[in-house]
């Protein structure tokens, strides 16, 4: 076996990311339409919150700036996830159709290849929303800006891990793309509201089954307070979901049937 120096792995990873971005830019017209309209879409959506806080000023300790940070983290994280790891959203379909085959015969970690095999143009619009909202929210205390970027990265990692986790269930359950996507939508929806609104059992759900807390509330809390405990919790949660996603995906590979279970050709 050829031994692989680490540098080769890095060069491979950067080539993969470059190729992926090139592919998403290949259809220039569609790229700009989707990216700019997604930004516009997010800004228009946020109008509801502008109106809300204009009228009520503060709810359960939350103000407009807090909402801006939360929205920035969720949109930015989801955008970064779509730009760099959009392939994760295709995983369940690829499992069902047997599209993992050409990836599995290459001598590289399959999950990395799948995840980075697609980049969604609208993701750039989300990412831009994140950056713009973040700079608006931290305009008076610029020190928080780097924290915000770190929070966006953490949020993107948790989004990727949850997408892989949900979509990997297709190894056992078959055609679940729609459900998997829906679950991720729930994660976004819940992530967009302060979790101080939710109590008891629901809050537990939001940090476990639907890890909305880790893509929104917790990273946003870290930006707001710059506190070490928030950082520690964020780091632990992110690491946990990444590890879980890796384990589930690799267990799934063992029962991968290359599309044969669902009426394929033997």
């Amino acid at each position, binding site marked *: 076996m050829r031994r692989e120096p680490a540098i080769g792995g890095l060069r491979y990873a950067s080539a993969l990311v470059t190729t992926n971005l090139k592919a998403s830019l290949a259809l220039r*017209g*569609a790229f700009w*339409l*989707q990216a700019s*309209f*997604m930004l*516009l*879409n997010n800004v*228009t*959506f946020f*109008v*509801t919150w502008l*109106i*809300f806080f*204009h*009228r*009520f000023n503060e*709810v*359960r300790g939350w103000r407009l700036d807090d909402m801006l940070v939360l929205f920035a983290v969720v949109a930015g994280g989801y955008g970064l996830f779509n730009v760099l790891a959009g392939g994760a959203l295709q995983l369940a379909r690829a499992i069902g159709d047997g599209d993992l085959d050409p990836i599995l015969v290459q001598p590289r970690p399959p999950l990395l290849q799948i995840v980075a095999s697609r980049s969604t143009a*609208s993701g750039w619009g989300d990412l831009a929303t994140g950056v713009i909202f973040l700079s608006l929210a931290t305009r008076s205390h610029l020190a928080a800006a780097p924290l915000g970027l770190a929070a966006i990265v953490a949020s993107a990692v948790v989004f990727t891990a949850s997408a892989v986790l949900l979509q990997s269930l297709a190894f056992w359950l078959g055609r679940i793309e*729609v*459900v998997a996507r*829906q679950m991720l*939508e*729930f994660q976004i*929806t*819940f992530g967009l*509201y302060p979790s101080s*609104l*939710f109590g008891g059992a629901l809050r537990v759900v939001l940090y476990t089954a639907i890890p909305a807390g880790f893509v929104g509330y917790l990273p946003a809390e870290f930006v707001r307070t710059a506190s070490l405990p928030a950082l520690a919790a964020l780091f632990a949660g992110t690491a946990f979901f990444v590890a879980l996603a890796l384990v589930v995906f690799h267990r799934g590979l063992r029962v991968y049937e290359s599309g044969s279970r669902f009426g394929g050709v033997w």
Partner: protein
Amino acid sequence: MSARQRSRATPAYLAYAALGARREFAGKATLAARMLFVAVILLVFSRVWAAVLERGLLAGRTRADLVWYIVITELVMLSFPYLHLEVEADLRSGDLVARLPQPVPYAAARLAESAGGMAVRLALLTPMALTCGAVFGAGVPGDLRGVVVALVLVFPAACLAVLSSAAIGLSAIWLHDASPVYWIWQKLAFALGGLLLPLEVYPHWLAAAARWTPFAAMLNGPGRMVFGLDGGDAARVAGQLLFWNLAGAVFVAWLWGRALRAIETSGG
């Protein structure tokens, strides 16, 4: 078109409507998922409004009022089939061009199909939506007659949404990708129609401006009926919806004509 031809065309539209209806039954699971989604929104906003009301920031409204308002507006947004996706797909696959020589005009057939689908959606979703309203609103609004009027108005409001969706789908002829246009339309409807917040909490200038748009007639119009029966206001909303539906139909017809010309010159 002679009278005899017309009498033959009517069952064709009915057949398309039935087709749309059957398709909705097949997609029950998706509908249930979207309803679950609305339940999440209702849950969130029942908490939001509870927090607002406990600080006495909004006089004269109960939590039930505000949650049921969202029940109605979401019912409008949920009950129209995504015609733009169909039209876009037909344009991409060339099915639209293939269907042009058929005796029933494509646009009319698709609209009939949507109407059938919408009827089924409303029948399936209304009980679910009302249940969610009772659960998350912790009760029902004081004046149930208002709820009845609101439910009646949901239908013309959803028709307006279908017409919008048709126009968005046709835009794919020029833009090649209709989804981004749909996002913007949807978010404008949220903001200017008052999907989550009734227009009365908006700044006055914004509320006044929003009332001139079809979005306010489509969402806030039926939604605010749950606050209590007001015959005059109900008639006004019904009139606005009638006006915007007519305007929408004219616009779609005009767009359809332009689209046909674009297809003829480019060969699809």
